[in-house]
């Protein structure tokens, strides 16, 4: 049987001869990133229920100052700087760094170009636009700033690890602190580990620690660092999603504890 109605190259949007559910992955990425983006936006401006005892939501870490009417015990400054407009919440001052790191991340770029711009929607699936400029010209040439966001992200890993450490020390009722482990401690520790796994597997870091060189045989420390980053980099997508989900989960947990919906179970 002949099929004259079928052309070899059909470039209408969404055209493909693939039989599999090619739309499933971009749809999942679209929904995942949209939900996280909207939730982040809400958390930034909501400014309440961001701490519970020794726990601090990672969306607010580091907490430069407490929002009006709150004394969390986690803030770095005594109060809001006078020069800062009142509408600016503390988390807005810090979240640009981790969000910028994720936005310019090589994995996420490939994922959201497909999911949000359909550029392409999936492999061998036709696109909605004829024009294509790629990352070689404005505006996407800005993605090359990724390594600078990496430097900030590395600082954030240290800060979140410190927050996990602080989550081990609970008020003992006598004005002092005593060692303990709660579910929140495990959650915040998991958050620091997952974020560390994601950040330390970054393609830019891999380049900076060793990829930049053609020969690593004479530099054992550099070689070990390159091998370790490469090891994490092989599962970069997995680390990216696990750390993203865990950040959200950590905030939800602290929020629910703070609201009294959940009571934090102390293991030790």
């Amino acid at each position, binding site marked *: *049987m*002949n*099929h*004259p109605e*079928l052309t*070899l*190259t059909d*470039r209408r949007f969404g055209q*493909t*001869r*693939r*039989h599999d559910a090619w739309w499933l992955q971009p749809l999942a990425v679209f929904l995942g990133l949209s939900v996280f983006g909207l939730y982040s936006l809400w958390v930034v401006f909501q400014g309440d229920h961001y701490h519970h005892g020794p726990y601090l939501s990672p969306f607010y870490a580091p907490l430069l100052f407490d929002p009006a009417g709150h004394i969390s015990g986690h803030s770095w400054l005594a109060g809001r700087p006078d020069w800062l407009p009142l509408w600016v919440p503390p988390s807005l001052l810090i979240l640009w760094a981790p969000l910028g790191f994720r936005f310019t991340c*090589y*994995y996420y*770029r*490939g994922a959201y*170009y*497909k999911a949000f711009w359909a*550029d*392409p929607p999936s*492999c*061998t699936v*036709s*696109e909605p636009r*004829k024009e*294509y*400029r*790629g*990352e*070689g*010209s404005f505006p*996407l*040439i800005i993605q*090359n700033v990724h*390594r600078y966001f990496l430097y900030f992200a590395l600082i954030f890993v240290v800060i979140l690890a410190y927050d996990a450490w602080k989550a081990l020390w609970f008020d003992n009722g006598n004005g002092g602190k005593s060692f303990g482990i709660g579910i929140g401690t495990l959650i915040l520790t998991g958050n620091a580990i997952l974020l560390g796994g994601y950040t330390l597997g970054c*393609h*830019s870091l*891999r*380049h900076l620690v060793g*990829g*930049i060189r*053609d*020969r*690593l*045989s004479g530099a054992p420390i550099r*070689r070990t660092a390159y091998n370790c980053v490469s090891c994490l*980099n*092989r599962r*970069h997508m997995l680390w990216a999603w696990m750390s993203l989900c865990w950040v959200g989960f950590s905030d939800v947990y602290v929020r629910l504890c703070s609201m009294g919906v959940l009571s934090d179970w102390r293991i030790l």
Partner: protein
Amino acid sequence: MATATFRIWRGDANEGKFVDYETEVSEGMVVLDAVHKIQAEQANDLAVRWNCKAGKCGSCSAEVNGNPKLMCMTRLNEIPLDAPVTVEPMHAFPLIKDLVTDVSWNFEVKKKIKPFNPRPADADDGTWRMAQEDIDRVQEFRKCIECYLCQDVCHVLREHDLHDKFIGPRFFVYAAALEMHPLDTENRLEELKNTDGIGYCNITKCCTKVCPEHITITDNAIIPLKERVVDQFYDPIKKLFRIFRPKQ
């Protein structure tokens, strides 16, 4: 014996159509076997390029059910046979006839990449010394069989026809193999940025997914090259370092 329908593109650069061929299939067959069976029994003039039937020559590249594949490595038990199996030529290159495309553009691109330029020999007998761990990284790139499936799936070539501005994943792998070689002294970064179009790659990883040799094209070749281009042209701190670094 079971039968399956293969919907094969028949035609040349000017005109053509898909034609259904029903043929018997048996256990262990690959798509190329079925195409050969159809060629032998029903369509003697069906043009198909092939050579090794072992996934090593890279000749029988085509699109099977919309996925760029080596026909000789696509087993029939891995694809649904209850619907017609579409077999068509690669889309990124000019069609010659039926399943055969003109891939000579790739040969011309390869000629433009600066060749291997080793440092002076390490020993008096004109040989060099390399550590295995230094060569391991580029060893992966040498697995390429030049099937051009990565070129075919890349939307920059396939969808946007930017053949004059973008050399494609295969040649970023080739450039990476040279650029990262411990003996090589050539600098190809300016060409990679300006004429080879590495900035057009938007890291969709389709090339990595279709590579029959499982070369991690995007993560191990393209992104490291992108990072080297950033070092050279976009990173202001790196530029500062270069200004103050003593000349070697």
